[in-house]
């Protein structure tokens, strides 16, 4: 197993996994690292720079465990994306203790948007959310 980072266009960061994909989010704050992990996840499915931000969704949840919170954040975004037929290109999240509020904006799928591979869900594998001297890191394997 190699967890060496792989940089992709758009500065999204990934790590190797045989069948699925490891996504990495980094940021100065915990919230920024979650937003970056969401960008890395959705960039598996499309070119986020080409996504028009014409529709938005909001979400909130309660979670004390910050690692489980990362998984729930990504999975709620994936669920809303699939439920509404939207592809997201921008993400935001705020934390107030155990309460998390966030959202995303994007547009309905259109034929000329690049289609990658569908992300089915974020897993607890290689799940890690931690702060180091460079800031916050949030990562896990997503099932594709």
């Amino acid at each position, binding site marked *: *197993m190699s967890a060496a980072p*792989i940089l992709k266009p758009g500065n999204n960061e*990934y790590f*190797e*996994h*045989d*069948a*699925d*994909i490891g996504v990495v989010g980094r940021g100065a704050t915990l919230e920024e690292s979650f937003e970056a992990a969401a960008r890395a996840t959705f960039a598996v*499915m*499309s070119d986020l720079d080409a996504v028009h931000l014409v529709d938005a969704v909001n979400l909130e949840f309660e979670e004390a465990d910050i690692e*489980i919170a990362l*998984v*729930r954040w990504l*999975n709620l975004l*994936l*669920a809303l994306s*699939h*439920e509404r*037929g939207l*592809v997201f290109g921008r993400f935001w999240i705020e934390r107030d203790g155990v309460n998390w509020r966030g959202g995303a904006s994007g547009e309905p*799928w259109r034929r000329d*948007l*690049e*289609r*990658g*591979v*569908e992300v*089915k*869900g*974020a*897993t*607890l*594998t290689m*799940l890690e959310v931690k702060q180091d001297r460079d800031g916050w890191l949030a990562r896990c*394997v997503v*099932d*594709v």
Partner: protein
Amino acid sequence: MDLSRLQRIDAWRWTVPLAPGEARGEVRLYGSRELLATMDDKVIEQITNVARLPGLVGPAMTMPDAHWGYGFPIGGVAAFDPEQGGIISAGGVGFDISCGIRCLRTNLQLQDVAGELPSLARELFEKIPAGLGEEGELKLNPAELDPVLIGGAQWAVRQGYGSEADLEFIEEHGRVAGPVVENVSALAKKRQRGEMGTLGSGNHYLEVQVVDRIHDEAAAQAYGLRQGQILVSIHCGSRGLGHQIGTDYLVSLAKAATRLGIRLPDRELACAPINTPEGQQYIGAMNAAINCALANRQILTHLTRKCFTRLMPRAVLETLFDVSHNTCKREHHVVDGKKRLLYVHRKGATRAFGPGHPALPECYRAVGQPVVIGGSMGTGSYILAGTPSSEEQAFSSASHGAGRAMSRHQALKQWRGRQLVDELAAKGILIRTRSMRGVAEEAPGAYKDVDVVAEATEQAGLARRVAFLRPKVCVKG
């Protein structure tokens, strides 16, 4: 994989030496030295973790196509006894609950369709929703979805998708018992709204294939297979509903395991004892997802038939078999001479009942259950038959695919989708896709050699080869 960590049982079976008390059961890896050498060390770690789970019966196993997954390895098989604290694990089933293969045999020979293949490829690509963001024509609100989750393929047949004859050749006659629709979240049902009759993406596909080689004449005859015959394989699962059930229960079971005092070596093995409310709740939801997948493949079968008969009105497509490879099934097995009720997790592994099993259709009972090893789009697939030996050593389980040999990122570095499509077209294989990136990630070279996997499956006694199928048209999800 570091082979020095393994102990050889014979040329096709290996174990991992464990310290006394380190695990509840033995670990067994199937495959040749060459296959195991290409696997990631994580496969050993993951299957050893499975061997530590409560109530394990027999060995925790990996099939010859195994690779690193999440929680369980892909190709992982493990059986648990509910009366001995045995568990049910959402990570042991996966997100794509009841992903599997429906195989259809036609009355057509390659020469009958050769001139029609480009038209057939276009028709299938237009009519079978495939890839990200593609929805089916059928839209079901949550209330309308409940009968699907209860009735499975039987519901689909009642709605006019296919015929009663299909049901005989689907596991559990197209409907697994014990779905509990109340255990399926509203979000899961909403995600499925436009997803009935869709392939999905990733490694999912619909493939038109030709029988290229017969290995076992008697079994081929029982399955209605002959050289040069056209078959269709549909690989997909329970779509958004299954993904959301996996998501919902992965987190809730991980929390339940802590509450129930189960020490998880990996949180992804999220589980609960079968005989607890938490375990039963997941089982009810999982069974609903299995029925959703069976209905989905039944609708896709119907759409495929329409495409064929529109171009070739005399075409007849019969269901050869439908088998899932991401499930946990309640089955009876003989262990140490005693018949026991077990919950058998197969994550990326196919059930493979041997000859004489009462669950098999009568016309297959003498030769065993059809088993499909789906290969990559450029190489081919195998149909095999279940064996008595598989029942004795592996709870009737076998390989499910070629198995990935490299990551998606590595594949993207090596191949370009457009180039692959052109190269395969030159070899007479027509690929239709909305995702060139997806084609590159699914490049034939990114998978293990399917011939080697099928041979290892046979040599280990898990299933025996019946026929090799070569792809002619592939609609990629």
